[in-house]
């Protein structure tokens, strides 16, 4: 077979090697391809003792691997799963994890090291050249394929009977719709769900630390208290989903320091309640700076000013935290005066 050459385009710069193929240097072209360099023998190729040494090294690596596997099994059997040991410089670590990982690692590594050493020192390292052939088929092959295809298409009569073709295309286009429809029950429709939380008029504010309802006098200046609505029970799915919207934080601010008029109205005696869910992408806010009344979301550092309607003063959040209107009931406990007036958490298309 005469080797097919990769075709060259005339108008493009020439590739290396096309003028002097086969590595014959043209006498007056100093840049010509001199061809493959001659093979330089390694020490193992000429010195039998060196080759023997390599052989021993490879065998030793494989042997170490076997020993490491035995050590792995022994460690698995002997070391209790909960044993903690101090290993410098790692500190306190699980003894079993350390032993299993190191023995497994050694067993694997030595197989690899042995194989690579074997390949590098003892297997032939003579470089050989193989020909490449163009990926694209020669013209006659292409012609044959085209005529075969034309024959097939002709025999199917698809070109002559467009009615079949068109109805087939229609059927194929429609059949995936069933699959799409089947996805409908993946979940309910959003409806108003993102607008409502379990907060309602009269719901007590429960301190998440103590599990008790809060009185105004429990709320100290300068501290951030996390609260949840009464009646939410931990350890259920409903809890997870509801708390994702209903988590609230309260702080006490000197009423004179409250800059926002509505905030003051919705507060009780300087106690303000805000959604704890960041309006950026929904992380819970966790840090409070008492001098400035700033709260910070740890996820992307959005910062809100609780003394000024919780407006965003830094970071990627797009709008203020929603405020919960609170008051005090007949028994002197803090209660909500209704649900949030706007959706809590991240913004969405229907939020408006």
């Amino acid at each position, binding site marked *: 077979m005469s080797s097919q050459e*990769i075709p060259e385009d005339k108008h493009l710069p020439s*590739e290396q090697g096309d003028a002097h193929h086969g590595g014959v*240097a043209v006498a007056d072209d100093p840049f010509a391809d001199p061809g493959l360099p001659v093979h330089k023998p390694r020490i193992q190729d000429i010195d039998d003792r060196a080759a023997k040494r390599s052989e021993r090294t490879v065998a030793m690596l494989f042997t170490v691997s076997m020993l490491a596997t035995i050590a792995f099994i022994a460690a698995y059997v002997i070391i209790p799963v909960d044993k903690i040991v101090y290993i410098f410089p790692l500190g306190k670590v699980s003894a079993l994890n350390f032993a299993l990982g190191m023995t497994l690692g050694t067993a694997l590594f030595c197989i690899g090291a042995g194989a690579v050493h074997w390949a590098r020192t003892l297997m032939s390292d003579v470089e050989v050249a193989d020909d490449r052939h163009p990926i694209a088929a020669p013209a006659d092959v292409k012609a044959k394929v085209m005529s075969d295809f034309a024959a097939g298409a002709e025999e199917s009569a698809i070109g002559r009977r467009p009615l079949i073709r068109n109805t087939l295309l229609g059927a194929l286009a429609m059949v995936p719709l069933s699959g799409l429809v089947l996805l409908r029950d993946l979940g309910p429709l959003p409806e108003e769900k993102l607008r409502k939380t379990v907060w309602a008029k009269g719901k007590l504010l429960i301190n998440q630390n103590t599990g008790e309802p809060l009185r105004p006098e429990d709320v100290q200046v300068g501290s951030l208290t996390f609260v949840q609505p009464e009646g939410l029970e931990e350890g259920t799915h409903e809890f997870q*989903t509801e708390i994702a919207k209903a988590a609230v934080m309260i702080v006490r601010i000197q009423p004179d320091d409250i800059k926002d008029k509505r905030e003051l109205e919705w507060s009780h005696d300087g106690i303000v309640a805000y959604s704890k869910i960041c309006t950026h992408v929904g992380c819970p806010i966790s840090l409070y700076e008492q001098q400035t009344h700033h709260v910070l979301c740890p996820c992307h550092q959005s910062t809100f000013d609780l003394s000024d309607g919780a407006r965003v003063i830094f970071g990627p959040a797009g709008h203020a935290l929603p405020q919960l209107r609170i008051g005090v009931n007949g028994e002197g406990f803090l209660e909500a005066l209704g649900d949030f007036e706007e959706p809590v958490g991240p913004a969405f298309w229907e939020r408006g």
Partner: protein
Amino acid sequence: MSTATDKRKAPAGERVADWADGRLGIYSLAKANMRKIFPDHWSFMLGEICLYSFIIIILTGVYLTLFFHPSMNEVEYHGSYVPMQGVMMSEAFASTLDISFDVRGGLLIRQIHHWAALIFVAAMIVHMMRVFFTGAFRKPREVNWVFGFLLLVLGMFTGFTGYSLPDDLLSGTGVRFMEGAILSVPVVGTYISFFLFGGEFPGSDFVARFYSIHILLLPGIMMGLLVAHLILVFYHKHTQFPGPGRTNNNVVGMPLLPVYMAKAGGFFFLVFGVIAAIAAIATINPIWNLGPYRPDHVSTGAQPDWYMGMPEGLIRAMPGWEINLWGHTLVLGVFIPLILFPLVLGAIAVWPFIESWVTGDKREHHLLDRPRNAPTRTAFGVAWIAEYIVLLIGGGNDMFAQYFHLSINAITWFVRIGFFAVPVLAFIITKRICLGLQRRDNDKVLHGRETGVIKRLPHGEFVEVHEPLSQDKLHTLTSHHQYTPAEIGPTVDENGVERKVGAMEKLRVKLSKGMYGEGNQIPKPTVEEYKEIQSGHGHH
């Protein structure tokens, strides 16, 4: 094969092979491939690292499925990790604790799985860079480039879904982040979110749903792409760097059997061994320190796995723009980062197609470029990496702020400006460096290698002795091809009829000038120049 004269029975191995050949045709397959030639270069091992870490991930992942319970049912923990006794948590979290504390070797396998995943994505990016900077993506390998890029994208999502499965505080925060991002999509965002989570976030479905995506859907697609990727590497035959005896029409290296097989097979064990050792000494994702997910709790310093740091940087640096109009909200502050994520990632993926459009080169390329010899391409690649790094810094802005005692504000502004400025700077600087290196190569070719030996000339001047390069070197340094910039050509044809030049054609010519025009590449020395200078040297 047994002949009439060959009476003895063939050895067992041969008989098995005969059996298989009669059914599978393995001899013809082996004839073409057993002694297939593979060129050798350290950078060709990067693809292997991807392959091996993927295999390790599959092996360890299957083991984990034997113990992991993909359920969000709330249970009370009673395993052997004392600090969590009696805590309510999802079964997913509880079973992850069990794998870590009650299954012997479970922690090791978990850690190998996670480390291998991090190394997998990192190796893919580095492998992609090697393919990019050497121009290995050129015809006929564009399709394989696309397969590879899809593997990278799928790898990132597989990592993200896996990371979310234990339902711990950190991963739950990441899922919330994703939900918030989905909500920002105009018109359909809330619907997608409700369908994905089976209702409101977090609901009780997402772990089970992510599980089937993580262990079946995405790995299944990746497996198919990976096999196709490797078949194409075989079919195209590997590229090689230019050098004596290496042409566009041959492939020089060592045969698959035995050398390449031993090296590649051995390398698998090396990679696996190293990852096992890392898993033995370096804790990763200690979910027991974090606790189970609660939507109202958060750990400080919430950080995703590194490969998600890029979108994280986008979302942190973006100003919180929100537009309220006609009762609807356009959450640009989140939606723009969501769109930029695939755009930034995809910028590198489309380059090969832009380049081949600009050059109009339809030939096959099997010889790799040295990065300096394609200055514009190299500069673009470095600009892309620079952009990626800027965003990674943005993604870890709190950590950087703490570590370098800077304000987060300063870092955020650095990222906002750097997003636009750093890639441009990186582009300009890289291009200059490439051109400088090209000049240096030219010098070497024309004047020889600096020997460090100083010679005093008769008239007292000191000069460094230059030793002429060997023909091997001369050939290697001059064998790259250089494009000539495209021209618009005459706008009036021979019959005097005006020819319309389209806007696209004008753009192509402009780009071509920017890539191959004067000042954008240093013309390589010609034989005449070389000869003239060499004969000139004789006069000294």
